[in-house]
């Protein structure tokens, strides 16, 4: 018995020693007994501002609050892992991240489940000119009057084309209508200028939903009506699905699009294997970088072709991919203050103006500045596409809805299910989710 008592005491002692080795992730006393505040920020390493730009922003923030000994610690994850990381972190009693990058498609879910906190009071108090950010961007993060994230990345899709290839095919400019686009693709293929005129990101992932929303937009249609009911099996949404299938069937889109994500599609365009690419704003940088592109000077960004009689206000149709900065609900009150300070700093027009080469800014004043016009000659096209964005449905179970869309659109494109059947099944399954 004496042995067991000793053993138990030793085990308890060891446990306490091991437990004592842990430390709070947010407030860490340094060796010089200075209380350092560590702000944990979750960001993606896939698109938007690069990790280097974020690190630089973090250093500038630390310098600004030097007397408070603030340190910004970043966790960079691929975009597909971001949602899971935020949800998993929400399960912890205390937050793992003080600030997270939140996609607009998660707004309704996070608001309904209370994973992140509304930022209305901070925005009303500290953002003097919220009208400086387009309402289309604010709308992406607002649900029932609650602003769930501060806009950070004004991401949206652009229409990219290779002007040299178009000239070789006898076209003086990009297509303005869907029929013109189709005719240009047919001509490019028939003349042997390029085997597959178009490449897109049609892998069964979120990018496919974005492309379907945008293509439906080009036909002047939404996927859901004003009552929130799915309408993919009629009108412009059905025309869009038929159009995508036709491109695949006629060999106008590279079949590899069915397994391609956005960077893969961008690489194909930049390497001169496609005349058209519809993609996020990051492609502009890639196509103009000699180390990454074989089409420097030939790649042009334009507005999207649209079905005549639709989108008359903007003359284009894009899809939004806005991302904002949000504060998880399990962040302790004292860290929420610092989290907001970081958000206010990183999203400020002054900081965004310093990194225009990396990302299109959310602030209209910065977007229309002479600096941006000098850096980006196509800024007017950007503004037009931003004004013409279509949003993906803002529903709490968005990821389930999107998974259904991805599955049936993917099958409809490659023809394993007839287009009309796929559209009907899609509508039926999405409707059943709501019951």
């Amino acid at each position, binding site marked *: *018995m004496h*042995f*067991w008592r000793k*053993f138990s005491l030793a085990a308890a002692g060891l446990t306490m020693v091991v437990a004592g080795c842990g430390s709070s992730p947010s407030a860490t006393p340094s060796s010089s007994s200075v209380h350092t505040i560590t702000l944990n920020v979750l960001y993606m390493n896939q698109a938007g501002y690069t990790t280097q730009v974020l690190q630089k922003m973090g250093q500038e923030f630390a310098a600004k609050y030097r007397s408070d000994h603030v340190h910004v610690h970043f966790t960079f994850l691929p975009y*597909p892992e971001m*949602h*899971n990381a935020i*949800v*998993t*972190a*929400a*399960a*912890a*009693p*205390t*937050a793992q991240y003080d600030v997270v990058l939140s996609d607009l498609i998660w707004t309704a*879910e996070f608001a309904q*489940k*209370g*994973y992140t906190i509304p930022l209305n009071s901070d925005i009303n108090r500290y953002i003097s000119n919220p009208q400086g950010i387009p309402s289309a961007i604010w709308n992406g993060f607002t649900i029932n009057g609650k602003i769930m994230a501060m806009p950070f990345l004004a991401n949206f899709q652009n229409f990219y084309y290779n002007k040299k290839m178009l000239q070789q095919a006898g076209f003086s400019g990009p297509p303005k209508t869907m029929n013109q686009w189709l005719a240009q693709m047919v001509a490019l293929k028939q003349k042997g200028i390029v*085997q597959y005129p178009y490449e897109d990101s049609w*892998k*069964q*992932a979120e990018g496919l939903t974005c492309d379907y929303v945008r293509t439906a937009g080009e036909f002047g249609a939404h996927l859901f009506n004003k009552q929130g009911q799915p309408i993919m099996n009629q009108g412009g949404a059905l025309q869009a699905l038929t159009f995508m299938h036709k491109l695949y069937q006629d060999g106008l889109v*590279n*079949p*590899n699009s*069915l*397994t*391609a994500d956005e960077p893969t599609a961008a690489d*194909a365009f930049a390497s001169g*294997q496609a005349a058209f690419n519809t993609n996020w704003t990051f492609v502009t940088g890639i196509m103009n970088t000699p180390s990454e592109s074989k089409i420097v000077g030939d790649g042009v960004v334009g507005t999207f072709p649209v079905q005549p009689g639709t989108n008359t206000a903007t003359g284009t149709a894009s899809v939004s991919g806005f991302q904002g900065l949000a504060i*998880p*609900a*399990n*962040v*302790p*009150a004292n860290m929420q203050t610092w989290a907001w300070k970081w958000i206010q700093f990183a999203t400020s027009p002054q900081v965004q103006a310093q990194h225009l080469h990396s990302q299109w800014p959310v602030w209209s004043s910065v977007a229309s500045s002479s600096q941006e016009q000098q850096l980006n000659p196509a800024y007017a096209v950007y503004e037009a596409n931003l004004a013409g964005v279509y949003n993906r449905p803002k529903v709490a*179970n968005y*990821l*389930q809805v999107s*998974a259904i869309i*991805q599955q049936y659109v*993917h099958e409809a494109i*490659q023809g*394993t299910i007839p287009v009309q059947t796929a559209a009907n099944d899609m509508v039926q399954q999405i409707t059943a989710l709501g019951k």
Partner: protein
Amino acid sequence: MANPELSQPPRPSLMRRYFRRVSGENAWFVLLLIPAVVILLGVIVIPMLWTLKMSLANTSVSVVGGRGSVGGQFVGWRNYIFLLTDPQFWVALRETLYFWIVSIGIEVTLGIGMALLLNRPFRGFWLVRAVIFIPWAIPTVVNATLWGMIFNGNNYGALNDLLLRWHWIAAPVVWLNPSPLFARIPWLSHALSAIGSNLAINAIIVGDEWKTLPLVAFLVLAGLQMIPQDFYEAARIEGASAWTQFNKITLPLIGPVLSVVLILRTMQLLRAFTILFTLEGYGLPVLSIGAYQQAFSFGNFGIGSAEAFIIGVMALVIAYFYVRKLYREEMQ
């Protein structure tokens, strides 16, 4: 007459009897066993019971009063009923079983074949053995990325480039798209689709087997090297053919090793995730990816746990039959 109960010393408590039993020479045995038991409890038994509990509830993540937690109301078998009535679950089960059966088939046939070849002494056989084992040392994610490049659907994908140069194909093949096989022969295409066979899953099986086959071959080789050569000499004297020697000596004697390999690989294949998710994301539905998607993407931790538990039970049932067969053979 004396009361027998009073005449006997009081019976020691269960705990006291236990400690008395282990206080002797068994003490070290028990002491050394404790870490293993604690680890098993901590990383297997308790998580399994926790998963079972989650699968029987409407489990989700919630943040109340600034504190995050995982919990939900008890719903009985509702999550299991939901899964069993969901057509997507059956599609995922079909894909999982196809992935398992085809992989196991390749491993048993090619694994034994490779082991038999490696079992013969030839010049430089140590080098060949070392080289063949390299794929097993490659991390699964790296292996998946590597095969992603080989199977890239553009003309610059390694396999497409090779086949185009040899004029075996006229246009690049999108190997990782789950498209039906033999689309020009409808009845065959439908039959293959019905059993879960498509281009992508077969391509992934190739990539997975490239990594795993060496391990299987080496385990079988270890079994082969334990068979006394006398058995073969005696069989040869008796005039047994090579096939008879293999069928009557080799196969029965590597049976125990093969059973262990089958158990190990069945467990791995039924819960295979990394290579499938790296190459296909949610595009190729198998049970493990379905469970992950339900839990972490859709937030339905109850349904995700139920799906994960079904995978575990399936693996256990299959392993049980392997083990029973193994012990039966050993008893004989």
